[in-house]
């Protein structure tokens, strides 16, 4: 029942906001819908944590502790982002970068986007999963080009084409999956239900599945932003409105990775070797290293943090590739930490860029003077994302690196090198933005700082203390991923 | 024990009293060697007396440090003299400070004098202080290395025990000591502001080191400093004797040997002073920038001495 509402609310929200148009309090309504969604997600989570995995709608939906954790995360970040976008979008309107019609588009497709992601997370049907992913892409394409500047159009076009191609390949992978499944399950609806597939994964034809996995990995991997398929990501993050960047790197990447993980579980079962894991580790490592070295050259702040998202996604993929209880646990933890921290950073960056009217880091100076809370938010967020204790990102990185150290020692030098380079680059660029002297005007609206510190507070807490039930929950999820 | 304390005090006083005499003797010899008519051997005493009677003239901005330094230096030198065995070998005070502490004492005196020299803030004062520290930062470790060689041989850093080992144990040839001796000679020349490092009898700005530091002193302060300098020369000579030709120094609790020991020390000092003045007469003062080379050589020799000890005697 919660599930129905969970999916229903955002969709109705989308439609409602589309019809109702941009009125004065549309942002509040947007936030309200997100809040309701969050509430539903909470209820659902409680249910799952109590009663364990469950099937809904005669098998079309399946919720276990893995995806319910992502559902909760998605709903939460979606809500905080809605809160953040309230003043942000108003200020954008003040600055005349957006008008009512575009804001209408923004709000309705924001809800649709959230709905699509939730659908992708909760569905049990690999086909529907694909449909939902495609829907999420389409919902965000127009958001990326919301400013209608040449740059944003270009970014959106690249985003659309590259992800479109990727997603098409993923569809091919799904077809192959179905092709293999129908041998066992017979043709018809059930052959794509993940639970059924999971039940019979040992009998699925290995050659087909390995082929399918390649297509699925390249397909969904494009959306995860794994190098060298990542090319769209920095452009889309840098040119879209900041709330969109926040949800893109905070949520969409996770969902895409979730899709990869679901298929990995099947393929592992079918092949009985760790081909899938090896591929993922390769992709992950490549992404981490490449992103780290690309960060060094960045001048645009959002672009830089986009690359950092690639780096962290690579890290998570690497962790999942290693497999095993600890690594999966670390991967899930890192997913959470990255979503929270990165979205917090984008919130802070968003207001910073609004203050200065530019995204060029050389022109942003002395935030700590003009708006101390904002400055400290950005500084602490950066410190957190760079894996400095006591923030939670360190906890997960600690686990990942230590696991890598005694399972794949060869990989550790690359990881540490990349992390070191990224640290030097990002911190060296953020420090002068936060510190130093400057003269800047005030903003027309009080920027939203609650979300930033809410997220950072959570990250800090998780770094020092992970509540037992949360830990148990992660462990369960890690186990589902074949820990 | 009480006898020991008496002996200790007696010895220290003896050193303090004899020190100017040695200075006088050296000056006399040098005068002879230079063909001048020599001042009487008691000249240093007279000048000290004269200085003590004068009124002290002190710069306006002199701080208490400036006035305290001479006493400090004198005290340090007296203590040093009290540690080094001159005639007798049992010194109750010597356990309080071994050779390393001895180096420390010299350093303490030097630092205080250098600070005092900088206190007034005259160009010459700071110049003197700088040069003094330049000399010392090479001379001090070199001296330490010399002591190390000796104490490696005698397995101790206590001077009486070193002396006892070198003088009264079975005689053995120590090549390392030869190096040490040469190094020690060079060091003591430098430390006592003698030619070729410094010239005690000049106020030429290009050359002076020790004199430059004490330019601002007068009367009793100057007297104390001069006396301390003489004491330093005495102590160094006594050290050299104790380390390299210790024969004749009275062993523990042997009162009978004292007169002989006294005679021995006087004789050795006389010879040593003459040698010093002879060296000064035949050698010329080196340029200041050559001084580090000179002392560097001393340092290297001392280290070599130690190495040789490890190689041949270890």
């Amino acid at each position, binding site marked *: 029942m919660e599930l129905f509402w969970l999916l229903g609310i955002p969709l109705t929200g989308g439609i409602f906001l589309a019809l109702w148009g941009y009125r004065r309090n549309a942002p509040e309504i947007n936030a309200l819908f997100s809040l309701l969604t969050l509430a539903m997600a909470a209820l659902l989570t409680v249910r799952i944590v109590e009663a364990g995995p469950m099937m809904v709608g005669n098998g079309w939906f399946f919720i276990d502790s893995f995806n319910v954790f992502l559902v909760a995360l998605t709903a939460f970040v979606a809500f905080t982002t809605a809160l953040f976008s309230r003043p942000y979008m108003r200020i954008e309107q003040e600055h005349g970068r957006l008008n009512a019609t575009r804001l209408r588009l923004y709000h309705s497709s924001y809800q649709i986007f959230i709905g699509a992601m939730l659908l992708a997370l909760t569905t049990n049907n690999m086909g529907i999963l694909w449909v939902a992913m495609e829907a999420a892409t389409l919902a965000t394409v127009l958001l990326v080009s919301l400013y209608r500047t040449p740059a944003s159009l270009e970014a959106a076009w690249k985003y659309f084409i590259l992800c479109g*191609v990727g997603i098409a*390949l993923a569809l091919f992978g799904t077809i192959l999956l179905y092709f293999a499944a129908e041998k066992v399950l017979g043709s018809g609806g059930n052959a794509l239900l993940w639970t059924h597939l999971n039940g019979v994964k040992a009998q699925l034809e290995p050659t087909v599945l390995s*082929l399918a996995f*390649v297509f699925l990995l*390249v397909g969904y991997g494009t959306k995860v932003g794994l190098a060298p*398929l990542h090319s769209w990501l920095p452009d889309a993050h840098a040119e879209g409105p900041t709330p969109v960047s926040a949800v893109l790197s905070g949520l969409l990447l996770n969902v895409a990775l979730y899709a990869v993980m679901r298929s990995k579980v099947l393929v592992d079962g079918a092949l009985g070797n760790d081909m899938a894991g090896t591929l993922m580790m390769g992709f992950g490592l490549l992404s981490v290293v490449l992103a780290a*070295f*690309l960060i*060094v050259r960045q001048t645009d702040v959002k672009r830089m943090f986009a690359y950092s998202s690639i780096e962290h996604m690579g890290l998570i993929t690497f962790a999942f590739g290693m497999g095993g209880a*600890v690594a999966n646990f670390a991967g899930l933890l890192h997913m959470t930490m990255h979503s929270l921290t990165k979205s917090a950073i984008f919130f802070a960056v968003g207001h910073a860029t609004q203050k200065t009217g530019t995204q060029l880091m050389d022109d942003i100076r002395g935030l*700590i003077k003009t708006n101390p809370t904002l400055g400290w938010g950005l500084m602490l967020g950066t410190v957190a994302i760079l894996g400095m204790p*006591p923030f939670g990102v360190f906890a997960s990185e600690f686990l990942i690196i*230590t696991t890598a150290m005694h399972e794949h020692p060869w990989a550790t030098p690359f990881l540490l090198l990349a992390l070191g*380079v990224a640290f030097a680059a990002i*911190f060296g660029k953020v*420090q002068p933005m936060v510190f*130093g002297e400057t003269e800047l005007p005030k903003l027309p609206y009080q920027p939203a700082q609650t979300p930033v510190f809410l997220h950072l507070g959570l990250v800090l807490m998780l770094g*020092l*203390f992970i509540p*037992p039930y949360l830990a148990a929950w992660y462990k369960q999820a890690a186990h589902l991923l074949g820990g | 024990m009480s006898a020991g304390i008496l002996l200790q005090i007696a010895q220290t006083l003896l050193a303090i009293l004899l020190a100017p005499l040695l200075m006088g003797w050296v000056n006399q010899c040098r005068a002879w060697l230079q063909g001048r008519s020599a001042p009487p051997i008691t000249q240093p005493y007279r000048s000290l007396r004269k200085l003590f009677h004068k009124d*002290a*003239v002190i*710069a*306006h901005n002199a*701080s208490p440090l400036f006035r305290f330094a001479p006493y*400090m230096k*004198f005290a*340090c030198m007296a*203590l040093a003299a009290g540690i080094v065995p001159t005639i007798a070998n049992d010194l109750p005070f010597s356990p*309080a*400070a071994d050779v*390393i502490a001895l180096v420390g004492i010299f*350093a*303490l005196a*030097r630092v205080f004098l250098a*600070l005092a020299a*900088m*206190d*007034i*803030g005259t*160009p*010459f004062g*700071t110049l003197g*202080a*700088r040069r003094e*520290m330049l000399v010392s930062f*090479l001379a001090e*470790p070199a001296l330490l*290395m010399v002591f*190390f060689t000796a104490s*490696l041989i005698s397995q101790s*850093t206590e001077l009486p*025990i070193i002396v006892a080992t070198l003088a009264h144990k079975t005689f053995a040839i120590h090549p390392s000591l030869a190096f040490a001796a040469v190094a020690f000679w060079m060091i003591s020349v430098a430390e006592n502001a003698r030619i070729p490092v410094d010239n005690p009898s000049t*106020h030429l*700005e290009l050359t002076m080191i020790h004199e430059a530091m004490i330019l601002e002193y007068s009367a*009793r302060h100057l007297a104390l400093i001069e006396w301390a300098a003489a004491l330093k020369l005495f102590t160094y000579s006594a050290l050299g004797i104790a380390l390299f030709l210790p024969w004749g120094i009275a062993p523990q609790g042997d009162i009978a040997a004292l007169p002989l020991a006294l005679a021995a020390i006087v004789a050795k000092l006389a010879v040593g002073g003459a040698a010093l003045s002879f060296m000064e007469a035949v050698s010329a003062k080196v340029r200041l920038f050559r001084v580090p080379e000179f002392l560097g050589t001393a*340092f290297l020799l001392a*280290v070599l001495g*130690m*190495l040789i000890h490890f190689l041949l005697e270890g």
Partner: protein
Amino acid sequence: MSHLASLDAHVLDLAWAGVLYWLGVGFSALLLQRQHGLLTRLIFPLGALGALFMAGIGVAGLLLPASSMVLPIGLPDLPFHLRLDALSAFFMVLLGGAAFGITVYACGYFRNMAAGPLALLALWYHLFLAGMVTVLLADDAYAFMVAWEVMALSSYFLVTTDHKIPEIRRAGFLYLLIAHIGAVALLLTFGVLQGGHGDYTFNTMRLAEMTPFWSSAAFLLALFGFGAKAGLVPIHVWLPEAHPAAPSPVSALMSGVMLKTAIYGLLRVTFDLLKIQLGWWGTLALALGLVTALYGVIFAAVQSDMKRLLAWSSIENIGVIVAAFGLTLIFHTDGKGALAALTLTALLYHALNHAFFKGLLFVGTGSVLHATGERRMGRLGGLIRTMPWTAWLTLIGALAIAGLPPLNGFVSEWLLLQAFLLTPGLTQPYLNMVIPVAAATVALAAALAAYVMVKFYGVIFLGQPRDPALQHAHEASWPERLGMLWLAGACILLGLFPTLVIQWLEPVVLMLTGQRLSGISNWLLLTPVSAERASYAPLIFLAGVTAVVALTYLWVRRVYHGRVRRSEPWDCGYPEQNTRMQDSAEGFGQPIRQIFEVFMRVERETPDPFDHHPHYHGDSRDKLWLLIYQPIADLTAWLSMQAARLQHGRIQWYLIYSFVTLIFLLVLTR
């Protein structure tokens, strides 16, 4: 002892409570952002009390057996483990003792700071203290790393307190970067140490069986990681930048205490966590330490900025400590337990001394900075007349760090040199060759330290003020004086009662080397090995000096007179002389620079005879920067340029990437 026995169970709880107390103080400072009065009058005194409390805990820990506890925080499978044994207790005493004086000083130092920044500073300050204590208490890798990085991060924010100045920002960045790299090395160390158990508590590491190869790997990583924090050459570059940049009490904490946490870690890993030790580690550490010591003191001698000079001198002292560490290892692996105990004692003693006198000197410069607003020694001088308290108290620190008897610096130096003298009889002959040279180097460094201190003290406090404004320099405030008094007093007491201190170090030495010093006879006479071998009695020494001084003084006064006439300085009768004719800092360091110019990159602009405002500027920089760090930066830049080529905007190319990846993977999985 009975009342202590009752304490036994709770001492660790108390220590943790102290940490929480500090955190509480820090965050309450954040709440008091508006009340400036409360901030200055309340927060720092409370912090100081905490420091005193920590010192007390440390003393208790030295007397009590080791105790440990597990906190309900941390990772699910790896909660925070805490442990208080002799080693950590000793360093807690060091921390508490030094931090108390410094924090008391801070009460006065930060009086005039604006409330907002002050609140933040207080927060970071107490976070810094809490982090350092937690580093000492941590008993598993995760807790250690968290505390370690909290320490680094908070100190970074303290360093960048005055972030308006670009140099300071740069210094802070360099500091945090190198600290982070060091931390990564430490992470690797623990990774190696846990030897495949996957369990990161120190207890498992203690039990882990390791081959010499992996042990060496762990040791080298630890040496790098902790060396980066301690400022070991060649990873010292951040230190002379960061320490001067911070506010003086913070510099004092960083130099005096934080560097010691690195020493603590080194001891912890080498003697406690690692089962086996190898001789060549000792030789390596000895060599590194000596190089560092010499390098540091040489650069200290040529500095013209007073805080930078002190920072370099910290590098020197760390070098001496690490050399002692190396010697300890050599003896330990050579089965010379007693000697290892001696060198270890010297090491700990020196660490303790350095905490106090370096703290004292840094806060002293702090007062000078406040009174004159000037850090360049070339603009100071003659302050002994305007600020006597600061001057005389700093003098004690200067004499102590110069290693002069009867102060504390001399004691540790003396012990170390004794250790060198005891080396013959080592099994490896090559060591017997190395030792004399090493001893010579240490002696040389010590002598140069005296040079440095004469320069430091003479140029700043003595002479005539090089700037008329200095006439109005005001004396330090009372809290500042009290803080300095505490530190100076510690320097004196540590110098006068070495035997007591050494007896009190015994548990630590016993724990690490399994040996105790043989010949400690009585409280008066310090005889590390035996009375015949060597002895030193600072009290008698002091008594002797004072007696002679007093006697001479009385005698001069009795027999002659005390008449004094004041006049102009004579100065060889030079007609005119002004304050500019005194040696500047550069001038005083010039001989050293001339001798050791090979190590330096000297930039000199000398005036030509014809310009109207002739001015001289000389700056001697570290050559290693060009040799090591620049190439690394260039390489990174080059690599990133290569990477950037991939990202060149044509969508066709991006499609080709996907296409090729797909084909490649398809071929791969066939």
